[in-house]
């Protein structure tokens, strides 16, 4: 029996769980239970096959040569390793995910820059008790009274007072 795959990477499930956003928690839980089930199944199976006591069988079985024949064939037998069909799919998924992730991070950074610009504008504002009405209109354009649309005081619909 040849062939041993030991490519299992240790996964820190706790750290992984921290990074999962709340709306995907159920998917993460499903994945975890599935992985745990598979791992449990794997660990329940012993790694090598139980050894067959050939000498005992040689003495016990009366038919001549049968045991020897079996032994020879058994030792020569190569169990084929199962073919891995999914890893390529997973790798391509990963590449795609990386692409979309970088795009998302770019957009996120743009949003952060926008927020920080607005925040800086607020922080650099003069305090309200030193502002004139013109300063207020500059800082908060929505406070500007439309003197063209409502030419008479109070320059806004009465309902808005």
């Amino acid at each position, binding site marked *: *029996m040849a*062939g041993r*795959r030991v*490519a*299992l*990477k240790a*996964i*820190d499930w706790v*750290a*992984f769980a*921290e*990074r999962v*956003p709340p709306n995907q928690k159920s998917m993460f839980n499903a*994945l975890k239970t599935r*992985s745990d089930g*598979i*791992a449990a*199944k*794997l660990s329940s*199976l*012993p790694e090598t*096959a*139980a050894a*067959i006591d050939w000498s005992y*069988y040689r003495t*016990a*079985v*009366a038919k001549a040569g*049968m045991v020897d024949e*079996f032994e020879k064939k*058994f030792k020569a*037998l190569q*169990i084929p*390793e*199962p073919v*891995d069909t*999914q*890893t390529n799919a*997973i790798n391509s*998924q*990963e590449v795609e*995910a990386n692409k979309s*992730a970088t795009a*998302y*991070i770019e957009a*996120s*950074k743009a949003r*952060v820059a926008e*927020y*920080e610009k*607005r*925040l800086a504008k*607020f*922080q650099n504002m003069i305090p*309200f*008790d*030193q502002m*004139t009405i013109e300063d*207020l209109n500059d800082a*908060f354009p929505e406070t500007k009274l439309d003197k063209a649309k409502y030419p008479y005081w109070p320059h806004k619909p009465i309902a808005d007072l």
Partner: protein
Amino acid sequence: MLSRLVFVSGNALKSSGALGAGLVQASRSLHTSSQSLAPVPPLPETGGKVRHGLFPEELFQLLYPKTGVTGPYMLGTGLLVYLLSKEIYVINHETFVAASIAAVVVYSIKKFGPSVAAFADKLNEEKVAKAQEVKDLAMASLAQGIENEKKEQWRVEGRSMLFDAKRNNVAMLLETNYRERLHMVTNEVKRRLDYQIALQDLHRRMEQEHMVNWVEKSVVSSITPQQEKESIAKCIADLKALAKTTQARA
């Protein structure tokens, strides 16, 4: 305020330089230089100081070096006496009207001034507080937004873990499958060998039983009637003897 300017500029011309502690307000020189003062300095908190509610403090400061503390009062009294005596100001009924109105006005301002001022200040403060609230809320939400974005970026960094988990699962499944096959082969071979052994045992046991049966049958069939009669007679004789001995004992 214009009087203040007059006094101040007059003083500057005289260059007495004794403005000192009397000048409370920051001198706002408007349009004196070509450069514009931006941002415009804030308005002063209180108005200029006045004495007796009417006369700016600058007048007293102006006259102090020459005439001391009582100078402006003397000036005022002298001016008043001059106006009355020369009948430049004529006392008539209007004088009493003016005096009464002045008394009422002064009294009411002294009584209700502060509360009215407080009320107006409160109105203003409410406006400012509302605006401040809006500003604070906006700043807080922006900061929160930045936090959230950073958190999401951190979350995205962990995406490789998902694929590691998937690959692990695949590897584990393959390994499990391989082991199952291995065990299956071993078990099958063992089963066949055990079957052979069991078969052999069965054969031996069947042969044994058959032989025993055959021996028994042959023995039974070999007992001839003659022998049988003889053996039965011997049995009876033995029994009689036994009976006699037991009878004797009993």
